[in-house]
């Protein structure tokens, strides 16, 4: 049995009396510890898939099973790193992480253990130096790191990330990708990450899920990325598999499923 199992997932939204089917028949099985990226054109429904897995949206058809149990509401075992970091601006960096830890791990850990765990997770993303700052006092990359720390601190079985590095410059992005790979190797979480960036998808993923264009978007193709871990970005540039995977994804996105019209 797959760790995370999406079967026949579909969703329709009704707005002003008109119903549009955004997703249809999304089938995906993810093994424990696997790193899966979802890539597709803007507006195809990637965030919608992630939100259904998170429990923030309810699928109109089909089910999502986590370890055989149906997902029906949000929960910390499926922690989310939000596209726009979603830190609470009135709390410091440490308090943002603490809000999650103190709630989620209240039964599992004592007060002292929780406090140490908060520091541990801040250290994991190199944010100790700014732990007492508020979100509006730190950079975009730092906010995203705090968002990741907050999600990881919930000890999720599945980590859901919605374009976690989308709004960052290339250097910061590369740095955070390296940190993320490092964390994934150590913690062996199951990860689903949405991205627009082909290189990012190939570098980080075990499998890349490519989505067709909406409406009624679904999974077009799933590509397995065979390169061994740990991966080093500099060595990969020339790697045969890397080049091949990259070409496959580009081919899917820009030849077979080119965005219909850039009207939007």
């Amino acid at each position, binding site marked *: 049995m797959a760790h995370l199992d999406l079967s026949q997932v579909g969703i329709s939204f009704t707005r002003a009396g008109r119903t549009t089917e955004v997703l249809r028949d999304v089938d995906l099985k993810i093994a424990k510890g696997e790193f899966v990226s979802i890539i597709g054109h803007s507006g195809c429904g990637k965030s919608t898939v992630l939100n259904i897995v998170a429990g923030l949206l309810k699928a109109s058809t089909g089910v999502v099973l986590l370890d055989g149990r149906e997902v029906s509401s*949000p929960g910390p075992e499926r922690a989310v790193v939000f596209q726009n970091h979603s830190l609470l601006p009135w709390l410091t960096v440490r308090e943002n992480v603490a809000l999650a830890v103190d709630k989620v791990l209240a039964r599992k850990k004592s007060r002292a253990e929780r406090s140490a765990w908060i520091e541990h997770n801040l250290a994991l993303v190199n944010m100790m130096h700014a732990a007492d700052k508020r979100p509006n006092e730190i950079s975009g990359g730092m906010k995203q790191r705090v968002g990741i720390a907050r999600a990881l601190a919930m000890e999720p079985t599945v980590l859901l990330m919605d374009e976690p590095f989308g709004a960052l410059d290339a250097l910061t992005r590369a740095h955070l990708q390296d940190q993320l790979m490092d964390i994934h190797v150590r913690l062996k979480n199951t990860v689903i990450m949405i991205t627009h960036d082909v290189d990012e998808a190939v570098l980080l993923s075990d499998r890349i899920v490519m989505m067709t264009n909406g409406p009624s978007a679904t999974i077009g193709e799933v590509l397995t990325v065979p390169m061994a871990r740990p991966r080093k970005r500099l060595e990969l540039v020339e790697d045969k598999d890397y080049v091949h995977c990259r070409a496959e994804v580009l081919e899917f996105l820009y030849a077979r499923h080119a965005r219909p019209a850039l009207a939007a």
Partner: protein
Amino acid sequence: MASPTTLDGKVSLGTGGRDAAPVKARSLPRISGKGLAKVAAMVLPPLVVLAGFLLFWEVACSHPGAGLPPPSRVVSEAWPIIVDPFFDNGGTDKGLFWHISASLQRVALGFALAAIGGILLGTLVGQSEWAMRGLDPIFQVLRTIPPLAWLPLSLAAFRDGQPSAIFVIFITSIWPIIINTAVGIRNIPQDYRNVAAVVRLNPLEFFFKIMLPSAAPYIFTGLRIGVGLSWLAIVAAEMLIGGVGIGFFIWDAWNSSHISEIIVALVYVGVIGFILDRLVAGLGRLVTRGTSAA
């Protein structure tokens, strides 16, 4: 979403939440020629205008048979109550301090009740579409009722001046608190709700950890309007209910033709109202330090 009829506009004071004055005040410690010039530029204009106004008043009211006493006579006639606000001859013959503190106590109690009730009701209205539809029209009607119109009804219900006055404060100041809180709650970003859902905050935790801080800037706008209205209402209500209180003091002075005392009392009322407004605004600034900037 159904287009909100009246709750969508944030009711705000003309001056807005942030004032230039405190920011400038913070740069004061560097006492230089420039700093002094700045202070003078802030303090001088109102002083000049005030002096001009008093002079005009003095000239206009000095002739015999003038309706109002000139400022010089106000000061000389009302001198006893100006220099000794603390005397207490029993009954209602007390110094201004006692009258004002009685009024402030009523306002404090009525306003505190309105703040609690207003924030809770505003949360309900902001959070639930159903409560909004049901309550909003009722609120919109009730809030247009002038404060004093409630007084006879509350006197009938409470059979006593003190709780009636407090009720009038409550009912006057609760509406802007409800409305602004509701707008604040409605404007809580979906992101914050998602975060709360993922960590599974219960409704009580959600209220204290997400709703209140997120809506705090709006809530304080409502509180600031509310405290102003409270002060407006208490003076009027006290004129009718009697007893100790600044409103009664003014009415009593009128009945005994002590116009000078009325004028002194009005100055007090204005200054206290101003201080109340600044107090709530300052508290709001303190509490929403983190929120408003984001």
